[in-house]
């Protein structure tokens, strides 16, 4: 027992402490500060009066219910889109698998608020579709009005989360699970309902809770669609118009955090002890069948319709970026490259800023992610579980809440030697990005490290390598695919982040692209350049995704270790 008294090294403890310090400063303290202000009465004692005031305002009540309805409805519609697609890919031999994969990625590379503008032009009251419907049938469908519009945009944007999680879960089911049920007399839908779907349930729950959180937290989409009677826009408006001292903004923040946390907690509770994928694995994946003609027609019809819907914001934004005038017409009247010129002349700085902030944030994320993963999986440093918990909890903190926390916590603190307030520094944007994306990077790094057998490290130590050398020469190279996947995920999701950006950007010269797009989109005249900037953002994200995918899969084939882009 003596030897086991201290089961960690000084370096490990120092690493754990520095990570803890970072997370405390930039995550826990700011968020707790927000919570504190929501329940403090200004004289140092606690009160629920701010909450009372919140529910006393009818607009706030309305916003509360609206946010809840939008989030739940988006989960519902995203499920309706994703379920048949997942079922098709795993169940049938058919050529559309690549199409479905594309479908599953396309929405993610464009921020929902950018897509929302384009969707208004296509599906809005005087958008292309309604103009056509009016011409042909004399009707109009108000699908972009108010909450409906938000739900429409959000479910179309976030269904991939359900699709990806569900497909992975279904693929991980051992074919023997299904065969044994057939052997005992079950088949068809009954077999699916009793065996296959329950086994895939954890994947579905994980995806659905993510969608709920994302939609509940989204600020950009409602703002762009001019829907302000929801929680996130209200928090933004209260803080930016009434001021940083207004307690209602903090109350909204606390409610948003509470909902996100409960969604996470609920899904964790439901999933507890239900990781079916790894418990029994021996055979191949589920049996695939050929589609009959009718089934094929239905499947391709559904996929085609979805593809059209999913592509519409992309097509719309490209058209908008090239349109001289596009108003009350099915397609733009004339085309021009002026908007791109405007953007490249006016704001090359924004593109550089995005690359800089997101690159820094992603780098920070994978460094932290790798370190935390190593501390958790390979050491016995006390408090390592707390690090994991803190880093993962960032998933439940809306960008706007984190930003408000920063503004409040670091208020009045200036950079040593200058008069610049810390909150106006661009590095704060990068740090906010890093904190927000840390859960993704961490999960990716954890998965990568779990695939590295401990015996590989022990073999290196046995041959004389120190712990540090082993990490450098064995662990990191073997984790490289997962680390890169984590970097890319962090980078591309940070590039389209708006809610923290919008609060933390103080000067035009420090603004990243997402802020620029939003700013342009505020005016009718700015839509063209905004769309052009949006197209550039999508291209940067898409190129990044493509190349990292290439690198990861070529590495995977070399080492036999597979990492996946989340």
């Amino acid at each position: 027992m003596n030897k086991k008294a201290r089961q960690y090294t000084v370096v490990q403890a120092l690493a754990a402490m520095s990570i803890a310090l970072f997370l405390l400063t930039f995550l826990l303290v700011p968020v707790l500060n927000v919570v504190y202000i929501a329940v403090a009465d200004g004289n140092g004692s606690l009160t629920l009066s701010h909450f009372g005031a919140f529910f006393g305002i009818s607009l706030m009540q309305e916003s509360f219910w609206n946010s809840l309805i939008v989030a739940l409805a988006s989960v519902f519609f995203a499920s309706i889109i994703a379920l048949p697609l997942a079922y098709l890919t795993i169940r049938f031999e058919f050529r559309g698998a690549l199409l479905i994969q594309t479908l599953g990625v396309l929405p993610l590379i464009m921020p929902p608020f950018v897509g929302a503008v384009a969707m208004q032009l296509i599906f809005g009251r005087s958008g292309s579709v309604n103009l056509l419907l009016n011409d042909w049938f004399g009707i109009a469908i108000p699908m972009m009005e108010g909450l409906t519009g938000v739900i429409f945009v959000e479910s179309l944007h976030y269904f991939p989360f359900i699709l990806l999680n569900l497909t992975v879960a279904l693929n991980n089911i051992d074919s023997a699970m299904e065969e044994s049920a057939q052997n005992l007399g079950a088949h068809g839908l009954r077999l699916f309902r009793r065996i296959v779907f329950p086994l895939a349930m954890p994947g579905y729950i994980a995806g659905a809770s993510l969608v709920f959180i994302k939609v509940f937290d989204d600020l950009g989409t409602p703002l762009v669609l001019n829907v302000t009677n929801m929680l996130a826009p209200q928090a933004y408006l209260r803080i930016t118009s009434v001021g940083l001292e207004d307690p209602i903004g903090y109350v909204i923040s606390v409610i948003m955090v509470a909902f996100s946390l409960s969604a996470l907690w609920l899904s964790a509770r439901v999933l507890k002890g239900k990781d079916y994928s790894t418990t029994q694995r021996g055979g191949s994946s589920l049996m695939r069948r050929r589609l009959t003609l009718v089934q094929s027609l239905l499947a391709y019809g559904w996929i085609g319709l979805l593809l059209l819907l999913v592509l519409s914001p992309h097509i719309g934004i490209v058209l908008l970026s090239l349109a001289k005038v596009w108003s009350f017409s099915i397609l733009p009247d004339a085309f021009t490259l002026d908007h791109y010129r405007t953007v490249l002349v006016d704001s090359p700085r924004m593109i550089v800023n995005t690359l800089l902030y997101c690159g820094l944030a992603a780098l920070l994320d994978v460094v932290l992610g790798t370190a935390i993963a190593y501390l958790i999986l390979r050491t016995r440093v006390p408090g390592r579980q707390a690090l994991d918990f803190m880093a993962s909890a960032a998933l439940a903190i809306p960008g706007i809440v984190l930003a408000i926390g920063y503004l409040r916590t670091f208020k009045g603190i200036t950079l040593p030697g200058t008069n610049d307030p810390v909150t106006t520094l661009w590095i704060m944007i990068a740090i906010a990005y890093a904190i927000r994306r840390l859960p993704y990077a961490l999960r990716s790094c954890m998965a990568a490290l779990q695939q590295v057998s401990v015996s590989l490290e022990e073999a290196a130590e046995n041959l004389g390598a120190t712990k540090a050398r082993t990490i450098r020469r064995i662990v990191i190279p073997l984790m490289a695919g997962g680390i890169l996947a984590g970097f890319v995920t962090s980078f591309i999701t940070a590039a389209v982040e708006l809610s923290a950006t919008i609060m933390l950007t103080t000067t035009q010269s420090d603004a990243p692209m997402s802020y620029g797009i939003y700013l342009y989109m505020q005016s009718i005249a700015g839509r063209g350049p905004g769309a052009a900037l949006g197209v550039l953002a999508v291209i940067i994200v898409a190129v990044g995704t493509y190349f990292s995918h290439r690198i990861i899969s070529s590495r995977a084939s070399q080492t036999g270790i597979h990492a996946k882009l989340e």
Partner: protein
Amino acid sequence: MKPGQVECKNIVLAYGATQVLKGITLTVKPGEFFALLGPSGSGKSTLLRLIAGFNFAQSGQLTVDGSDITQTPPWQRNIGMVFQNYALWPHMTVERNVAFGLEERKTSRAEIAMRVKDVLALVGLTDFAQRRPNQLSGGQQQRVALARTLAIEPKVLLLDEPLSNLDAKLRVQMRQELKSLQRRLGITTIFVTHDQEEALTTCDRIAVMDQGVIQQIGTPMELYDSPVNRFVANFVGTINFIEGDVEHTPTGSTFLSDLLGKIALPAITPDRATTRAALALRPHTINIIAEPSSPTGASRGSINVPGNILEREFLGEFVRYRINANGTELIVDQLHQVGSEIHATGTNVILEIPPKALRLIW
């Protein structure tokens, strides 16, 4: 339920250009404990899955009790299968797992409850009905898988390497349990394994498979004593081959080899295109006597040849020697008892080979 008779008639199955089953014909009699024995890739699991309905033959016929089920989907076959990894559904309790097949058959609630209770008692898991599969040990999971399959009272029971996921001790115990359970229920059982000891000890008859072809079907003793070819001889137990040529003379057949010289073959062998063949003999049939003691064995009718001990392994019940006899390497097992003679490596010895133990193999 009355045990079923399984018949495979010339079954051929190919994946693309590779034939996995090349014309399998066999009959499993009602109530028989039958083994499909072979190395991995021999097609034994493919054949089992075909009987269960998870693979379909390109040609040939599969019948149970005379009725053709070649094209019947798995859920209508009433052939129970225990999967190698048990395939217990983790989202259901032991009781729900076992009840599943009966529920699919629309059995009444009362009867399901009764039957579940009965089969759980049969495998000794009455107290575990409310557990989840992941709360059970490997052996217990195996029993649940068995109970789940037996609950539907299948005509035929298929076991896909059921013991391979258990540790050595448990494997022997489960093997005996399986055998006594099968005897008690009298259910036709087909057992896939790559472990010859498992097949020899538990099964009534064995089909030895290699490369998609059945090499030999017989009782364990027939396979061991009279293997029809080198593959079977080698796969079922350890064996020595003495290479040589068969010669046919009007008075009978003889076998000419470097090691044994010319000896008469006990039976008339049919004429073949090649004369090249081998005499097979089991390691324990050879007796070692230390030089220079008198060749007593010759008087008992055995053939004596000199040998030199190359290597020795102590296996407990016996000592296994690797011996060079006139350029032919032989494996010889000598029973071991306290005080019995051990020969050192390098020593010259005399080997007594009884002609009765020799089997001609082409």
